[in-house]
């Protein structure tokens, strides 16, 4: 290692790790927040089409300041653009794409992920929480490949990858791969298999910060 003190991946590197796993020609839906960064790191030579569930296929970059159109937004209600070759459609058509299995990959954030690939990312289940689900449940139920991008632990250092989710589920057995600042972990046959460790992170250290059993890449 050249940079001795570097431990783990930056957010950009995490996004880059996800982007590398998105094949040329994929139809991709990016969740709100960190997942949106993935679009900036698609390797050269690949063309990826972005779907935003509020009704646009062929979403382009975020709109330049001064060119924003309040009627051209993404699922996070950010002002965006559309590429040549885009298409607009209504919500029932948009979720037919999702539910019907036409989106190849969806990248989402997470509160918790279980060792069997259950995902909790819509509610903390707290009493005064205003429940709001949006399209998260439709996406995990309808899209074949769900990538999760998340810090490995919470702000207070609690593991987010745990044996069973304690927060209300978004979906059961839905996550294909978890991209954290510490590792890339595949969910294979209801087991968590570490595909790659971040710089300066050992398998044992990773296991310590994880609330479920990890398996090394065979």
């Amino acid at each position, binding site marked *: 290692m050249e940079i001795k003190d570097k431990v783990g991946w930056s957010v950009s590197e995490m996004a880059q790790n996800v982007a590398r796993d998105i094949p040329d020609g994929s139809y991709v839906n990016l969740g709100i927040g960190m997942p949106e960064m993935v679009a900036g790191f698609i390797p050269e030579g690949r063309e990826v089409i972005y779907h935003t569930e509020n009704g646009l296929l062929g979403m382009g970059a975020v709109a330049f300041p001064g060119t924003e159109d309040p009627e051209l937004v993404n699922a996070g209600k950010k002002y965006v653009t559309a590429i040549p070759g885009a298409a607009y459609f209504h919500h029932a058509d948009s979720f037919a794409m999702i539910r019907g299995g036409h989106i190849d990959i969806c990248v989402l954030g997470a509160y918790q992920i279980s060792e069997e690939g259950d995902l909790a990312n819509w509610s903390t289940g707290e009493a005064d929480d*205003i429940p*709001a689900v949006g399209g998260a449940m439709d996406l995990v139920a309808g899209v074949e490949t769900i990538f999760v991008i998340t810090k490995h632990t919470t702000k207070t250092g609690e593991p987010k990858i745990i044996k069973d989710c304690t927060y209300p589920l978004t979906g059961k057995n839905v996550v294909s791969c978890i991209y954290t600042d510490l590792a890339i972990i595949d969910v294979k046959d209801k087991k968590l298999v570490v595909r790659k460790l971040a710089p300066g992170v050992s398998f044992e250290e990773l296991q310590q910060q994880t609330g479920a059993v990890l398996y090394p890449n065979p």
Partner: protein
Amino acid sequence: MINKVFHTAAEAVADVFNGATVMISGFGEAGSPVELIHALVDRGARNLTIVSNNAGSGHVGLAALIENRQVSKIICSFPRTLISVVFPELYRSGGIELELVPQGTLAERIRAGGAGIPAFYTRTSVGTPLAEGKEEREFGNQHFVMEKAIQADFALVKCQTADRYGNLVYNKTARNFGPVMCMAAKTTIVQAKKIVEPGEIDPECVVTPGIFVKRVVEISNPADESKLVAEERRYPWK
């Protein structure tokens, strides 16, 4: 002659009654029929059930309708936004009922309501708290829940261009829930930025055919909701 054009938003919503179910288009501010909603605030109909993806921002539009205590229940996928204060407060104090529905299930339940389909099955929400109380069923070894159609007495919808038959086209992602809501309401009331002559909308590009629309009213300069919210405006205007 068929002429669905109304002259004012007030006339267009004049028969919305207490206890009505009202669908309201929009995904955040995009496609939200702010002028029709404000006319409904003026109209004062109470005890409404609202079907809408969000629950309003600031103190205008849908938030104003809720703040005016006209809404007893909302069927919604995402009532929480960065600048929503009205709904969360009322919800926490028990002043409004919430039926939370996944976004795609909400859209499909509304389409089903318009398409004569009383119920359908979807994988969405299986294994989650939102599947509680719903019939589950297997098809081909996969689990599904049964979801029922949603219909409404009225739909308030915003579009870009309309004609006197009620044919509509929308603008970009402001299309969102408009087309399915037009289908699912007994009386669909639309505000259009522009009303044109029949034939000016290309028949290949009509998004909502006029059969789904009862009334159109031209609102050529609709409010920019996010601006109103940023300026902390309140409806009724003070």
